[in-house]
């Protein structure tokens, strides 16, 4: 009986933490929105951002009439977003943001996260496509392209780093989010590897789904799909914000020194104040990255978008990804050869 209550309490704590992550993601988006609007006002420009303020949007959408276009597949377009969001929550639970209440064991496992990223994306595309409008199909196709765009550097980056880690630390788990953090803080990585990893980070942040005005919610920006309204649309929009935020959180976690510190400082994993400090510092860092470096990367990408043709951009992205893989893998080969010579 006692163990049942303990389990229930653990699940409740974890649910509160996941809720807190969603809240922080929406708050970060709101703060960014307010800052942009403030800057627009100060410069005397009328705000060109058609997306509503996130908290206001959530509040109003649950009282607004549910509208579906003619010909939409009702069960999927109405309840599909629910499954999209639910499939994304295990990713949220996997980010080891707070070690005292892990709901999923060994939460920083990358393979586990990718499965849910993929499931959630597939469900989202199905949900949008079920609206059965030409404009909805266009949005679904754009979503598929966006998913491909951000998943490719994410997968190739973590796979290359896992390969490096497998050579540097053969006994440890290479598919862990903290692999890069260990390599960087132990000084095991050579300069080419570090440059390659930084290039991956840059590529991942640049490809985080976002809209033209720097908001993390790329979905239904600029008043798209006006004939699809209601709480189901809001769930999809919150999912969009959360997705962008969690991708940034994954990148930040991969260089955050918590796991390394835990292995170095005795009692760090047990002391509650140290864990609380870690939690606070981690989320503040994620908000900071969301606030400045991420929009800067997006602006740079937007600038390139205007200057170069689609083919040139694709070529540049592929060349940078290959360069990053070559740098990390090349450094790993060097390390392996050094070990063999020794």
């Amino acid at each position, binding site marked *: 009986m006692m163990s049942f209550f303990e389990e229930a309490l653990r699940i409740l704590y974890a*649910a509160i933490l*996941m809720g807190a992550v969603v809240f922080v993601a929406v708050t970060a988006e709101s703060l960014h929105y307010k800052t942009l609007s403030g800057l627009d006002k100060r410069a005397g420009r009328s705000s060109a951002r058609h997306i509503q303020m996130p908290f206001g949007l959530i509040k109003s959408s*649950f*009282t607004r*009439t*549910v*509208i*579906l*276009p*003619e*010909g939409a597949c*009702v069960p999927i377009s*109405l*309840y599909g*977003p*629910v*499954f999209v*969001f*639910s*499939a994304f*929550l*295990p990713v949220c*639970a996997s980010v080891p943001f707070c070690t005292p209440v892990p*709901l*999923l*064991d*060994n939460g920083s*496992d990358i*393979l*586990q996260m990718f499965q849910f990223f993929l499931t959630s994306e597939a469900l989202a595309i199905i949900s949008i496509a079920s609206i059965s*409008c*030409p*404009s*909805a*199909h*266009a949005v679904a*196709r*754009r979503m598929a*392209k966006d998913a491909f765009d951000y998943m490719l550097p994410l997968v190739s980056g973590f796979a290359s780093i896992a*390969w490096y880690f*497998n*050579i540097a630390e*053969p006994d440890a*788990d*290479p*598919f862990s989010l903290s692999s890069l953090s260990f390599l960087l803080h132990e000084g095991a990585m050579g300069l080419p590897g570090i440059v390659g990893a930084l290039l991956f980070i840059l590529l991942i942040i640049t490809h985080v789904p976002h809209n033209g005005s720097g908001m993390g919610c790329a979905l239904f920006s600029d008043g798209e*799909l*006006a*004939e*699809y*309204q*209601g*709480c*189901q649309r809001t*769930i999809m929009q919150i999912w969009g914000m959360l997705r962008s935020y969690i991708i940034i959180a994954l990148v930040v976690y991969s260089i955050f020194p918590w796991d390394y510190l835990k292995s170095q400082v005795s009692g760090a994993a047990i002391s509650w104040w140290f864990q609380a400090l870690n939690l606070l510092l981690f989320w503040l860092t994620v908000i900071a990255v969301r606030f400045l470096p991420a929009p800067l990367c997006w602006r740079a990408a937007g600038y390139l978008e205007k200057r170069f043709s*689609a083919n040139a951009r694709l070529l540049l992205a592929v060349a940078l990804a290959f360069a990053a893989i070559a740098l990390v893998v090349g450094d790993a*080969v060097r390390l*392996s*050869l050094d070990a*063999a010579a020794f």
Partner: protein
Amino acid sequence: MSYRLATGYFVWDFLAWILIFAVAAAVLSVCITLVLKRQNGRFVRSGACSPAEPDIFSALDDKIYAFRKDCVEPWLDMENIHIIAVAVLFFLFSLAVFCRGAGGGAI
């Protein structure tokens, strides 16, 4: 029945996955149902759909289609494709078996 897949590296807790998914889905479904109930269980049909924006992916689609037509379909249309497919799979399998241990620690 085991709900956990534990290897030396990771632990996948299927029960926790199902639990998180099911609880979240149930809560959100109830939310949507309640919102619909406020509207007497009905939703509004918006009528005509908005026109699609100019399709920026059509060029990409054309390329994919051309690739499929020129590069993939000739292979699929071959007479002995089944035997070739089995042979390729066998080759990949033997490659995986004989190169075991080549990746990772020793290159």
